[in-house]
């Protein structure tokens, strides 16, 4: 079992361990230790990778350079391999997921109803996510992708609140429809390149070596992009996200909004743009328009939301719109910004949902009008909410600004294949979202935390406990570190983004 296989299967073994632990009290500790070990291993891999990447230069190559690869034949007759590898982009995502699962376990410290199944399913979900980020054989990629989607149904259905069955069902079905489009795209790629070169294989780089005909790219690219876009909350397909997040328990919506929605962006970039450059050039403008709506629509939608979770869900729709917007710019800074935004928004939403979970745990209501003046009672949570809010509206000093500035500058600089005026108009529209974001963030925080205390028995509420302080502390530290010293992450990502852009030319 190589290093990367361990990275994928540690959560799975922890899940098994969780199932086998006798007393319920120990369960959360086992889960925590598991995810802790994983965090350490991720850190080790990241440093090791950083050591390698910082020496290399990536300007020329056209294929993704992979490190610590593991390659075993699986279904030889169909050219399917168990192929794992890591490059800058997937390493960043693995770091993000590892942090989110660690804090997610911490945030669900008080899950009392059937904790064994809860933690097991959560860890299985994360195994799927790690699998996606580390696998470079499209069959394996698709397999892990669906493994990541399915536990959501049970997690939301059993432990959720509000119309949980409805939103769990809607979420699962829409994501499965998404995977339907991706599957067809995969087949198109597999067979076209197979007939073309005679070599049938699902390996990403072998598929990339074939020059797909333009006509085929014209219909396969949108299909794959929309397939991933559904998970990445692309405009018309985002409706599952508000309901899904509102009904999901804290850790699940942390993982989902924080990590799973990034799968969409990652997949769109890694498969759609990487393998089908001409399709990307043709459709970039269309999707850029769609994502601009996505950004503004999400932020305007969040202004009038009554429920705190819907509020954050719409905000994450808007921020995920920025991710896909970055991808659609097909410009070096834009794409790099998209990956940065994936990372930074992942941490931000994780923090937001963790905090909402903590507030909900105390006030037992998520309705903004019902709450007010909580800062007096929970100063720590209020400060953390403020940091999360400021980070999400892109205050410099936090990772939000780095990512958004990349995307907006990239969008403005445009690319060689689309009319730069159209792109600039769209970028200006998208940049306006920073103002609208500021409006709804401050409105929301103002109503919940500031002003006089509305409800007398809120006075008795307690401030954050140790685990909560640890969770929020870690997440804020990450936001702050990336915000102030982004070079580590930028250098990590640049290496993997360059080949994608070189292929466009």
């Amino acid at each position, binding site marked *: 079992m190589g290093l990367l296989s361990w990275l994928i299967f540690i959560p799975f073994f922890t899940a098994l361990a969780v199932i086998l632990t006798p007393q319920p009290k120990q369960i959360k500790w086992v889960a925590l230790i598991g995810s802790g070990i994983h965090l350490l291993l991720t850190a080790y891999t990241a440093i090791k990778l950083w050591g390698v990447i910082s020496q290399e230069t990536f300007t020329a190559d056209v294929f993704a350079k992979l490190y610590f690869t593991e390659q075993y034949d699986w279904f030889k*007759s*169909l050219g399917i391999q168990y192929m794992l590898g890591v490059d800058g982009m997937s390493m960043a995502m693995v770091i993000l997921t590892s942090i989110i699962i660690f804090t997610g376990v911490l945030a669900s410290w008080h899950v009392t109803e059937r904790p064994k199944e809860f933690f097991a399913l959560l860890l299985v979900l994360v195994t799927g996510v790690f699998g996606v980020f580390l696998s470079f054989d499209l069959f394996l990629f698709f*397999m892990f992708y*669906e*493994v990541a989607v399915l536990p959501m149904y*049970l997690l939301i*259905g059993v432990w959720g609140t509000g119309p949980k069955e409805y939103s769990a069902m809607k979420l699962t079905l829409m994501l499965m429809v998404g995977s339907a489009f991706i*599957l067809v795209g995969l087949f*198109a790629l*597999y067979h076209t390149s197979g007939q073309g070169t005679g070599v049938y294989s699902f390996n990403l780089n072998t598929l990339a070596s074939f020059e797909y005909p333009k006509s085929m790219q014209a219909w396969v690219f949108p299909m794959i992009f929309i397939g991933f876009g559904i998970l990445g909350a692309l405009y018309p397909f985002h409706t599952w996200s508000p309901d899904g997040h509102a009904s999901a328990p804290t850790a699940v919506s942390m993982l989902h909004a924080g990590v799973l929605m990034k799968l969409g962006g990652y997949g769109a970039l890694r498969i759609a743009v990487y393998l089908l450059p001409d399709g990307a050039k043709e459709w970039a403008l269309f999707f850029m328009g769609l994502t601009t709506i996505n950004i503004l629509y999400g932020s305007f939608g969040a202004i009038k939301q009554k429920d705190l979770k819907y509020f954050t869900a719409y905000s994450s729709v808007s921020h995920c719109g920025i991710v896909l917007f970055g991808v659609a710019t097909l410009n070096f800074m834009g794409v790099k910004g998209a990956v940065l935004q994936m990372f930074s928004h992942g941490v931000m939403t994780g923090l937001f949902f963790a905090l909402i979970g903590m507030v909900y745990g105390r006030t037992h209501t998520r309705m903004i009008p019902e709450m007010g003046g909580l800062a007096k009672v929970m100063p720590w949570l209020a400060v953390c909410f403020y940091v999360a809010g400021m980070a999400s509206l892109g205050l410099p000093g936090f990772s939000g600004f780095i990512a958004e500035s990349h995307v907006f500058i990239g969008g403005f600089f445009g690319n060689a294949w689309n009319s730069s005026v159209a792109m600039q108009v769209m970028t200006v529209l998208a940049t306006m979202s920073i103002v609208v974001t500021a409006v709804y963030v401050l409105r929301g925080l103002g109503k919940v935390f500031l002003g006089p205390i509305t409800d007398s028995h809120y006075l008795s509420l307690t401030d954050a406990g140790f685990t909560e302080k640890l969770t929020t502390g870690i997440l804020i530290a990450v936001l702050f570190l990336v915000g102030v010293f982004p070079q580590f992450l930028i250098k990590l990502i640049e290496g993997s983004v360059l080949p994608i852009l070189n292929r466009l030319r």
Partner: protein
Amino acid sequence: MSMLPEIIIILFAFLIIALDLIFLDKAKNYLVPVTVVGILAACAVLIFNNSDTLMLGGRFVSGAMHLWLKVTFLIATLLVVILVPESTSENLKNRLSSVGEFLTILLFTLAGMMYLVSCQDLVTLYVSLELATIPLMVLSSWNRDDQGGEGAIKYLVIGALASAFLLYGFGLIYALSGELSIPAIMPQLTEGSPALYLAAALITAGIGFKLTLFPFHMWAPDAYQGAPILVTAYLSGASKAAGLVVALQIFYRLFGHFIVDWAPFVAVLATLTMTLGNVVAVLQENLKRFMAFSAISQAGYIILGFLGNTGADISAMIFYMLVYVFTNLAVFTVLIVHVQQTGKETIQSLRGMSRLNPGLALILMIGLFGLAGIPPLAGFIGKFFLFNVAAKSGYYWLVVLAVLNSTVSLYYYLRLVRQMYIEVPAEGDKPLKIKPLTMLGLGFVTVGMLGLGLIPYFYEQIGRDAAQWLAF
């Protein structure tokens, strides 16, 4: 002597009937173990001295490929036989009566199916097909109640109709080729005369009945619902596998090179079967009828394999059939235990099962996800390869439809999961007790569901054998 497995099965059938007659009640609880031993013996013989042989002057052929199909039948029957004791314990509501006869007839149909695989001429094909179908009509009215009778009658009427059509088709094939043995017919059928297409249509009707394809599937829901759940399991498992074997024999070996230009028709047939099966299953309440429609939709997925004509396509179908048998019988095992012990057949009756017996609920859930095609289960990998065949022959629209269908199927499978995991058990429900044999069966099946997909040996081996079989 490569006909040994079939002979063992038949001998054990007579052994059972003899034991039942001589020892009457005393032998009651020995019958099932003997049958299991018989089937396992047949399995052992089949697997361990499997060499390509021709017997009876070419009338009976047995090779590597046939091994896989026969193993599918044997396993399907074994898993049903294992569950017989579940249905015959005293305190049950609708207990299975006259177990001896039941097992004998089961073994006879099994023998019929195995001969179906190895037959080389139309007469044996027809007779073994009837041997594999008619006794099932008897079995489906074993409960001797109104529903059983009605289901059996419908099964009989449509079954007879189908066998008459099949017969008439074979007659026309005989007329056009003058031959009855399959290897001899293929070279004769050169140009596609209207009579040949009439024969093809008639035979397709016969196969459609057996495989429950769209216009010919009407009997299935009622027959599945009427029959005792044990027989329903057998019908949806082994009988459908037999249907596939007949289809393979005829479409590939009889009509051989015609299959290529039938692809559009097969595509339409697959779409209709899948869509109807899935869409109607959405609102079903009765478990058996629900599984009937699920089986119909699965048949729709399987015939996707007929869109291609290379070895890989056949291996995709056979692999998926093996996986389908494992997954379907995993689901049925749990349903059988549930239906027999609670007597209720509605989906609501599954309520809160995850709290009462988590193990069973988990296996049922894994089975349902297998049917819906969720990784890492073999169901997903099987479906992936089937869609791969359809994509290879350029039917991308069909792949989209197929995957959307499996999403709809996920919806109604999740209805069961919802009842088990999300709903609270009704008061008064007691946890179900499982016999050790069933436990063994469940373990075997679960390992099968996971192993078949992840371990590449099975698919690769079937692929090699299929290529070699086509050349036969």
